[in-house]
């Protein structure tokens, strides 16, 4: 095996991360085609890495009628494989590069345990666990439909000292055989809260700290209210939930609420809206995690499910639940969050009897997922 330079190792790690961000999509929908320009510099390497990681991507989507969800899904792979450190990769060096990529992928996944929990309605929930057995539990409620990978920084930051569990929203991880099953099984907040309770009851023991991130705050509150004996504390990060008309919404919340309301009406309507949403560049797609954020738009069926699940949490009035949660709570937001209005966090802290509010003067909504040293210090102090 030849020595791989540090620059090339970093570039390969970047490529592994980019491919991994699409993995959950192919796990659910099977082989998926991106545009050829997503692997325009080192196509042989990208194809070999995809094969090694068992992520069935192809790069032969027809460029006509360009679908900008597909563009965004391929953007990180495109960026990673354009690294100067990979530009002069000779064909003979590809096997070693792929082996290095596979080693990095295996190392990252070595510390995680994946669970499948079957619900009475036959929904199969996927949950990822990291951290030492015997450490205090942290259960994370992510935004509906969003991949657990978006919360990876929290898992990585907490796992040395905590045993963390994060679930995937119903209908967004298991293979889609009959789309109608999703409708029969339900997508309301009661269904989503029942799923989180099932993870709590079946996979954890003893006291648990619950984290709700963004739209996951709605479900976290429901679970905290229903299991006060198990949930010893609650932290809500940049919460996005419904607390009545007097609490202002951001433009983003107003637009998203209107669109998921329409898209959740039927698959035909979801297809109509998705077609128009993806007919041009999608604004606000962040760098580095774009494929994770755009995944709900990747297919009409996923967009419909996203609309049903997210629409349910956006409509759900959390006022009564929030007032009923008396456990210690930490509510964190940013003055500059233009996605989830900071007024929601402020109002939550007013109505929750045991809440402490932290409003930072800087940062964006994606800070909810970053697990910065400052955030980690704040959380661990709260948990101590």
């Amino acid at each position, binding site marked *: 095996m030849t020595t791989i330079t540090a620059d090339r190792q970093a570039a390969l790690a970047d490529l592994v991360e980019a491919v991994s961000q699409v993995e959950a999509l192919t796990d659910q929908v099977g082989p998926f085609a991106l545009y050829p320009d997503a692997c325009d510099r080192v196509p042989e390497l990208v194809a070999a890495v995809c094969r090694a990681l068992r992520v069935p991507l192809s790069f032969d989507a027809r460029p006509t*009628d360009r679908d900008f969800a597909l563009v965004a899904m391929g953007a990180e792979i495109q960026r990673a494989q354009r690294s100067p450190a990979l530009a002069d990769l000779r064909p003979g060096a590809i096997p070693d590069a792929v082996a290095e990529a596979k080693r990095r992928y295996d190392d990252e996944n070595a510390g995680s345990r994946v669970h499948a929990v079957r619900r009475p309605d036959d929904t199969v929930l996927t949950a990822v666990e990291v951290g030492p057995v015997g450490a205090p539990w942290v259960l994370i409620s992510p935004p509906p439909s969003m991949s657990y990978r978006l919360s990876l920084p929290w898992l990585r930051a907490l796992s040395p000292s905590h045993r963390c569990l994060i679930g995937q929203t119903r209908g967004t991880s298991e293979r889609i055989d009959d789309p109608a099953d999703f409708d029969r099984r339900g997508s309301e907040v009661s269904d989503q809260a029942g799923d989180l309770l099932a993870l709590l009851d079946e996979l954890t023991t003893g006291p648990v700290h619950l984290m709700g991130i963004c739209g996951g705050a709605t479900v976290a509150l429901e679970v905290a209210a229903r299991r006060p004996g198990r949930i010893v504390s609650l932290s809500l990060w940049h919460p996005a939930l419904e607390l009545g008309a007097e609490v202002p919404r951001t*433009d*983003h919340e107003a*637009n*998203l609420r*209107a*669109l998921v309301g*329409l898209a959740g*009406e*039927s698959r*035909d*309507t979801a*297809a*109509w*809206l998705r077609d*128009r*949403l993806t*007919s*041009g*560049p*999608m*604004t*606000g797609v962040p760098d580095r995690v774009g494929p994770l954020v755009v995944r709900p738009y990747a297919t009409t069926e996923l967009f419909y499910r996203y609309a049903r699940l997210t629409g349910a949490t956006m409509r759900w009035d959390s006022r009564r639940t929030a007032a009923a949660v008396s456990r210690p709570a930490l509510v964190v937001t940013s003055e500059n969050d233009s996605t989830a209005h900071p007024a929601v966090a402020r109002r939550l802290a007013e109505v929750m009897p045991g809440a402490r509010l932290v409003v930072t003067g800087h940062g964006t909504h994606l800070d909810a997922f970053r697990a910065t040293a400052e955030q980690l210090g704040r959380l661990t102090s709260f948990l101590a």
Partner: protein
Amino acid sequence: MSGDHEPLLDIARDVLARPGLTVDDDLLQCGGTSLSIVRIIAVASRELGADIDPRNVEGAVTVRHLARAARHSATSTQPLRPS
């Protein structure tokens, strides 16, 4: 929608919360995002029966250009039309 942009303009003003918006303002320069533009298109479909395909918008995304891209059909079965 040719000749009369007012109903679509009202929708765009409402969605973008810009009462002073004109038919030639670039919506993306006036706080518009892909979500809000599609919301305008969806409301126009529901309330005006206008089927606007963003692919047919030529030039900047303005109310005038959206209106020009609109296709009306009394027999359309597109799903956002009022039943």
